Structures are given as structure tokens and as C-alpha cells.
């Protein structure tokens, strides 16, 4: 490939990496769901068609589950176009990625493969291998009954055990099972008390069937809830007067926790301030790990304008990422100054409000003389428009040509029109961000995003990431 072709390839791949970190095919503040899906679908087809190896290697990056599913599906669909060596790498990467995906995503992927009529030998082997890694086949059979049934039917695989096979495919007529969970499921059809031993999503259906009061149900099912179900059901539990759905905030991942905090009314946040602050700080410290306190003087410009409210599908997601980054950067830095675009200082009581005077805030931030400047924003700079870009350009070209201050722009929103996260300026690297926890790795990736990266560098970076990913970090 020519030098220009190389550069173009590097740009395309970085663009795709950014998109696969941020885009979820859901409605965003500025564009609708259909537009997002169309744009993302095109991008996947384009990158797969032109750079199959690099497309595969993206699986080793911190991309989101939605895109991981899309990549795996497209790779399996187009298995015929791959060479033997490519297939081997692809197979290993897919298997590794499937392990880390949540099971419901994997089952959805299998269902999509079935709809698309993909049933090659490789696909069957991948599904078989994944199913053997499942720790409790009986739980999967109960919780993902239809999905598992469809997967087995599609691939003609033998069920994990004879009883699970009977559970899925045979007619029951009141026959007892020897596996306890399967038998509980049988009993829950007529015994109200038994359903509390089932997984929440299954029990919910039985509860509706038995007409059990929601509040009572939530209170009694509480011990069976998973961590994220617990977080999700907090407000519902309060509304239905179920007193005790206890939650251990300490163990929550940082960005989820930030989302939860932002879902609370301001009064609640003010009342539980110490508890929430502590949980966020602890989560941030965990995410920072060994990097803690090693970033020097950091100033952050964090976007809490109205557009950070996200959409009905992603409520306040951009603001949650900014809030999580705020706590993480505080843990990473030795000296930390946060600047919110609205000018407010109390991070915990933040809500999306007003315009985005990003340019003015960046000037303020540079005035604090930091070693590192981190911008977290969706890139829609409107008060006045284009000032941020000009400030960054002039700063880089005239005021700080040696790059004394390390500036990175993190963008949590995929812009469907540009097939990219929206950039602020060519002078400053922009990377997509999904979870604030990935921030240190993303800042590393950002060094490739300055616009003059060689393809060879990028390929070796991706190869290293792939090796690390396959060896299981």
C-alpha cells in the first residue's frame, strides 16, 4: 500500500475503534435510532470489506458489547472470505470475546445467526465450545429457555444433559426433575412460594401469573437479584414500598454508579451525600488501580450542558461518563482541578443544563497550568460555536508548540452523520469513551489519533493488545 493508503487505513481503523467504543445503535441526543443503526451498519461493512484483519483485531480493544456482537456476527457470516490463518485468529478472538460477553448478549447473537441462516461448521463449533463453558446448564435452561432451545435446534447439538434436553424439548405432564432448579421451575407453576428460588427474570413472569403484589414480590426476591438487577430495581422497589432491596454501593462499577447517582432526585443526593461520595471515590480508586496518583497536575473540562442529558434510551449517559471521569481523574492526579461547562462546582448535584461554552472553559483550564488537560464532551461546542477548536489550534501552533501540556478529548457520543465521534480540533486527539474505567487505556490509544500515525505502529499496537487479550490479561 502507498504511504497515503497507509495513513488512510490507520485513520479508518481508529475511526472504527472510536465508533465501536461509543455507538450502541440507540437513540442519542442529536440523532434517532434508525440513523444510528444505518450509520453503524455501513461502517462495519466498510471496515470488514477493506481491512478484515484490523476489523478482527478490534475485538481485543475495550469496545462495547453491542459492537462486539455485530463484529462476531459479520465475521461468521463472511467466513468463506477468510484465509486459513485469518480463521484461526478470528476463531480464538471470538471465543475469548464470547467468554466476556454477558450470556443474554451471546444468546441474542446466536438467535441473530439463526435468523440470518448462518450455520457453517465454524459457527457450530463456536456455539458448542461456548455452551460447554457455561457453569450451570440448568440455570441457563431456566433463565434463557427459548434462546437455548433455539441455539440447540439451530446447531443440532446434543443438550448439555439428558434432563435439560427433556426440560427443553419434551412435554412435561407433571413429571418430576432430579435437578433441583428444574424441579423448582416445575413447582412454581402451582406453588407461589417456590418461585422465590428462581432467577429474578423467570420469577417475575410467575409472579404476574399468580397475581402477586409487586412490592411483596420485590422484597422476597431480593436475595436472588444479581448486582445490576439490584441497582436497576432500586427506584421501582421504593415506589412499590418494598423496604429492603439492600444494595452494596461499594462493589458497583464506577460509570454505573455515576448513572445511578444521576438518576436520584437532587434532595436524595444531598441527603445521602457522604454515602454516595464514598462509594464513587472507592469505585474510582479501584478503577485507577496502580496508576493512582501518578498523573501529575490534571485539569478537566467536563460537559454538563443540556445535550449531556442523552436520550430516552440513554438517560444522562454523557453526563454520567463525565461524572465518573471526574472521580477517576481525582484518583489519578496528584493535583486536580475540575471545570464544568455550566460553571457549577458541586459535581454530585449536577444535572444537564444550559449551553456549552467549551472554548471559554478551555482557556480557563489552560490558565491553571496543568500537565495534562482532559476534555470530556460530546463535541457540540456552541457558545460561541467553533471557539474551542480555534483555542486548541492557536494553543498548539503558537502558545505551546512543544506539547508541554498533554491534551486529550474524550467523547462519549457517536455522531451518526460523521461516522465518528465528533472532533473538537485536528490539533488534539479525540477518542470515544464508553466507561470511564477505560480512561487510562483510551489515553494510550489517543496517542495514535493525532492524525499522523503510521499503519505499522497501529498494527503492532493492535497485535500487542490481541496477544494480551488472548492470554487473558
Amino acid at each position: 500500500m502507498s504511504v497515503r493508503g497507509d495513513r488512510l487505513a490507520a485513520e479508518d481503523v481508529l475511526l472504527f475503534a472510536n465508533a465501536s467504543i461509543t455507538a450502541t445503535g440507540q437513540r442519542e441526543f442529536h440523532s434517532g435510532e434508525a440513523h444510528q443503526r444505518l450509520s453503524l451498519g455501513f461502517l462495519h461493512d466498510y471496515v470488514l470489506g477493506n481491512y478484515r484483519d484490523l476489523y478482527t483485531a478490534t475485538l481485543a480493544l475495550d469496545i462495547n458489547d453491542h459492537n462486539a456482537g455485530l463484529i462476531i456476527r459479520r465475521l461468521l457470516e463472511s467466513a468463506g472470505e477468510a484465509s486459513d490463518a485469518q480463521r484461526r485468529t478470528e476463531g480464538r478472538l471470538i471465543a475469548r470475546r464470547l467468554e466476556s460477553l454477558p450470556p443474554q448478549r451471546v444468546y441474542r447473537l446466536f438467535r441473530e445467526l439463526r435468523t440470518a441462516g448462518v450455520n457453517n461448521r465454524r459457527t457450530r463449533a463456536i456455539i458448542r465450545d461456548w455452551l460447554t463453558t457455561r457453569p450451570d446448564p440448568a440455570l441457563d435452561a431456566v433463565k434463557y429457555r427459548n434462546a437455548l432451545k433455539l441455539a440447540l435446534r439451530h446447531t443440532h447439538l446434543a443438550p448439555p444433559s439428558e434432563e435439560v434436553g427433556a426440560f427443553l424439548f419434551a412435554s412435561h405432564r407433571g413429571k418430576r426433575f432430579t435437578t433441583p432448579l428444574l424441579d423448582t421451575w416445575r413447582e412454581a407453576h402451582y406453588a407461589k412460594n417456590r418461585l422465590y428460588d428462581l432467577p429474578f427474570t423467570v420469577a417475575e413472569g410467575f409472579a404476574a401469573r399468580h397475581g402477586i403484589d409487586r412490592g411483596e414480590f420485590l422484597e422476597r426476591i431480593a436475595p436472588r437479584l444479581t448486582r445490576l438487577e439490584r441497582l436497576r430495581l432500586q427506584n421501582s422497589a421504593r415506589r412499590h414500598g418494598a423496604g429492603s432491596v439492600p444494595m452494596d454501593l461499594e462493589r458497583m462499577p464506577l460509570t454505573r454508579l455515576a448513572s445511578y447517582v444521576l438518576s436520584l432526585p437532587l434532595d436524595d443526593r444531598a441527603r445521602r451525600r457522604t454515602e454516595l461520595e464514598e462509594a464513587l471515590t472507592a469505585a474510582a480508586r479501584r478503577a485507577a488501580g496502580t496508576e493512582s496518583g501518578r498523573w501529575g497536575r490534571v485539569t478537566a473540562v467536563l460537559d454538563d450542558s443540556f445535550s449531556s442529558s442523552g436520550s430516552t434510551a440513554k438517560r444522562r449517559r454523557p453526563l454520567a461518563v463525565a461524572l465518573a471521569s471526574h472521580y477517576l481523574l481525582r484518583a489519578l492526579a496528584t493535583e486536580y482541578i475540575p471545570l464544568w461547562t455550566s460553571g457549577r462546582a458541586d459535581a454530585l448535584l449536577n444535572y444537564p443544563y444550559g449551553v456549552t461554552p467549551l472554548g471559554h472553559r478551555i482557556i480557563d483550564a489552560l490558565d491553571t497550568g496543568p500537565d495534562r488537560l482532559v476534555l470530556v464532551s460530546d463535541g457540540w461546542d456552541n457558545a460561541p460555536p467553533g471557539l474551542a477548536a480555534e483555542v486548541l489550534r492557536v494553543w498548539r501552533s503558537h502558545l505551546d508548540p512543544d506539547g508541554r501540556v498533554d491534551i486529550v478529548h474524550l467523547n462519549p457520543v457517536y455522531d451518526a452523520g460523521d461516522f465518528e465521534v465528533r472532533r473538537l480540533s485536528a490539533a488534539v486527539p479525540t477518542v470515544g469513551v464508553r466507561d470511564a474505567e477505560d480512561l487510562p487505556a483510551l489515553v494510550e490509544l489517543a496517542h495514535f489519533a493525532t492524525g499522523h500515525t503510521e499503519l505499522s505502529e497501529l498494527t503492532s499496537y493492535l497485535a500487542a493488545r490481541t496477544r494480551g487479550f488472548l492470554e487473558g490479561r
Partner: protein
Amino acid sequence: MTGLDLSGLTAGPAQVRGGVRLVPLLRAHPVPDLRLHAELYDAELGVVEFGRHSYTSYIPHGFVADWSGDGTPAAAYGTQLTTDRPDRMRLHFPHRMVRRLDRNRLRFLPLHLASEGYLSLHFGGPVIAWEEWSRRALRNGLSPRAEQAYRGVEVNGLPDALRVFEIHPDQCGVLIYVADALAAAFVLPHPDDYRVLHPSLVQDLYGELIHHYSFHPPVDEFRVQLRESAIRSLDDLRLHAAQQEQTWRHFHDTTLAGGLLDSTYMWERVYRMGRFTLSRFLPPFRPKQDNHIGETITDAKGRVVYLKTFRLAENQVRRGYLLNRLADADWHLGDTADQLGITEDQLGLRLNSAGFGHLLRRDVLDGYRARARRSP
């Protein structure tokens, strides 16, 4: 005849989406003793009765103005929404366009006040019974007179632009440009009122011209451009950024909004409320220029506290213009034609194409047509 006094309001940086440019108007000192809020009607059609005539129109919402006589801040929005909602599917009969609800409260229908002013322009018809005018024109005047407008949701791209618009903390108004033509101006006394009434902009009326312009290609943002050669430090950077904003404001006030602000208007006072005055205004009807009708609430010094305008389409301007010229010449066709510098036949045909053909006697109009055919 005076212009609009928008002192106290400054234009903020514009936000663009597609062909729609929204320019916020910021108020450093909000007006504390007048508050506006929306009163929603469930019924889509409203009939306003005044005298023997009735006025039927689409009424999405009314505004309620609250003021306090002694200058103390008025209570916030929302607490006084006391009027009972009418049942669904029933026609709603607000008695008049402006109605006092209480000693310190007034309900009025936004833009209807202004369009009523326009529709009733020389509503009585010919004042002297020249023989060219039809019997109907002499008996009924211009009645029935109807004009078309589009709802905001029908203007391509406007609902989206309003949805993603980020409201400034001290914003009290907005100027809406479609394909860089000023479509409407909306000013309120207090930022809190604006925040609440911002969504009502999609329910407002917009002229045919604006609806047509909304299918034009997207407009560009006026992005900041800094001259790096003059910048030596961060302070310079700050200074230049401020200068750029100043430049934009000047450009906006003189060029973009010039059509609205430089014009002089005919005013008609509708209601006095404490130190505030509710009035409506009509433009001078100059063809091929911006012509806005509108309504305002002004304070004792004549400064605009509330403003809502509607941009007339070109044929609406032409109608207003012809009516004014006819009225100036006491509805005499020959005199009017002389003043316009055209022949009587041409004037007759112009009246016909402006939609006033029914005012002329049939045989007279046919005569004009025949002569125009003979002498091309």
C-alpha cells in the same frame, strides 16, 4: 409610527441545525413583576365571538400574563393554572382574544392578536360606493377574510432544532431564522418563563414563506476565527474570543435582524395592565422586504417586555399594500392606479391576482381582462 425598542436584550451565539438558525436573546436584568405562562386548551379549534361576527381558528394555547401593581416580584409559573380544562372533542369558546381573568391577570391568545390586526385591515371595505365595486364588497366589506399559516411542527426541521437547542441560563427570548430569513421573534420578561414556554414555539403559526424556505439547503454556522499572529498569551486569547462575540452581535443586530429592528410600525393599543401595555403592530407593507406583524407588551418606558411576531408571506404583504393604497385614495381605482404609476386595467388585474377579484363588479373585471388581452 415607531420601531421596536429591544434595549436590555443582547443576542447570544446562534445554534444551527439544518436550515434553522436560532439566536438566543439574553437579558442581564429580568423583569420581575410581569410573568407569562401558558394556558392549554384541549380543543384544537377555537371560536372567538365578538359582536355578531365570530372568529374561528386553530388555538393551541393561550398565554396568561400576571403582574403585580406594586413592583414586587410576581409568583412563579404554574401555581395559577386554575382554569378548568374543557372536555375533549368540544369546541372551546374563549370569549375574546384578550380577556381579564382576575384583577392582576390577563389571558390572551398569542399571535391571534396580531393576525386579527392584519385581517381586520380596512375590513369595512370601500368607504365611497364607486361604481366599480361589487354590491357584495359594499355590503360586507372584506368579510369573510381568511389567511393561511402553518403550524411549527409542519415547518421542516424546526421541531428538531427546537428540541436540541440548548437554552442559556439567562435567556429571555429567541429569534428564529429559516434559511437565514427571520421567521419569528419571541421575547419574554423572565428566563423561567422562557424555559417553560420554549416548547410552545412548535405550536405557533408560521407564514407560508417560512414553510417554503424550510426546504432549502442547510445554512452554515458562523464559526469563530482567531488570527493567531496577534496572540501572544492566554489573555490575548481571551480578549480575541470576546471580540469575536462582539463582532457576531453587531453583525446579527445590523444585518440578520435588520429587517425587524429597522422598520417602523403602526401601533394599536389593546389593553393597559398596570405599568404595562399590550399592543399590536402592523408593518408598513413594503413589497419584497421583511414584513412582520406582531404583538408586544411594553413597560412604561416603551421597552419591549413581551414580543411575538409573524412574518407575512409576499402575497400577504401585497394584499396589505394594495389595501393601504386603496384606502389612501378613498378606494377610487383611477386615483390609486395613478399613484402606483400603472393603468386602471393593470390595477384591476393586480387586485384580482391578490385574491380581491370578488370585490370588483364582474363586468368591470371582465372589461379589464379583455383590454389587457387586446394590448399585450
